[in-house]
């Protein structure tokens, strides 16, 4: 069975490989325009990140949150414009795998930080109580 009939009958189940922009390659100009939009957005977000880290215009404790928000936005730009992972029906499998990956990344990073800060608190408290003993 060749590719076109598989696509026609597949009914929107994982029809695009990750990184595949379109089933039938568009003309070069349209593809280039999409990459240029992605590049412009990524450059803008990168400049914003470096600016946010060095400026004093942003309320200081909020800078980390701003940097994380900018980084997540830029990763989204890369995923959509460079890796062509979208939420379209021909991308379901790719997006679901990505969602599972994000879940695991979130669990590993946030879980580690949470547990280790908790343990730091506990060991500080224990150190102090040991000092207090005669």
């Amino acid at each position: 069975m060749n590719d076109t009939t598989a696509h026609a009958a597949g009914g929107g189940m994982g029809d695009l490989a990750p990184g595949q922009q379109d089933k039938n390659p568009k003309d070069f100009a349209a593809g280039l325009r999409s990459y240029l939009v992605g590049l412009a957005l990524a450059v803008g977000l990168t400049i914003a990140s470096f600016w946010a880290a060095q400026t004093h215009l942003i309320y200081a404790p909020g800078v980390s949150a701003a940097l994380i928000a900018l980084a997540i936005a830029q990763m989204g730009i890369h995923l959509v414009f460079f890796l062509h992972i979208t939420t379209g029906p021909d991308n379901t499998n790719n997006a679901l795998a990505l969602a599972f990956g994000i879940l695991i990344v979130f669990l590993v990073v946030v879980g580690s930080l949470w547990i280790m800060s908790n343990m730091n608190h506990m060991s500080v408290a224990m150190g102090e109580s040991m000092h207090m003993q005669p």
Partner: protein
Amino acid sequence: MSTPDIVLRLPSSPRVLGLPAAETLEADEVTGHGEGGPAPKRIVVGYGFWIFLLSDIVMFSAFFAAYAVLSAATAGGPSAAQLFDIRNVQIETACLLLSSFCCGIATLAVEQRNLRLTQGALLATGLLGFAFLALEVHEFIGLVAQDAGPSRSAFLSSFFALVGCHGAHITAGLLWLGTMMAQLYAKGFRADICRRYFCFSLFWHALDIIWVAIFTVVYLMGVRT
């Protein structure tokens, strides 16, 4: 000669191994032979590589978690704010982003089956990636020279592990890139070569995504605190 009366009946489940699936069963009873048929190889290969990339990102998340936990553990040694040169990081970021963009151009050229443009864009991708790698190696050498090597403190151990792991991926990607250019030159746009190329482009774009996380978490936040 008489034919035997008893005809062997095979179990009708398509999941039993050894069944000559297509001949004996209805087409849509067999996995991958249902309505629409098996997915094209381009999708199967790409999806498998996408799963690998996600597991690679999960591995990186463990390095990020270690760095985030240990970033304050300087053991009396230099901290991130004293060590990192933001100008250097800006140039590295620009190199890698433009390299990723050139890789996108090469992908378009492969879809157009334009060999000269493909090779040119891949060469630009490789040179920018190499510039990134050279800047990173230069930074590492500078750190070790000022007694801030990976053995100095837990902070620096986790820093070299995380950023070094990304650098090792870039190195592997550059080797792969050279191989792809040679294969495209020698074998042209054969279907399997194109599949390999598309996997490489996914790999290269994913490395740029990881670099976004590194320059944010390691460099910008490190210089900030």
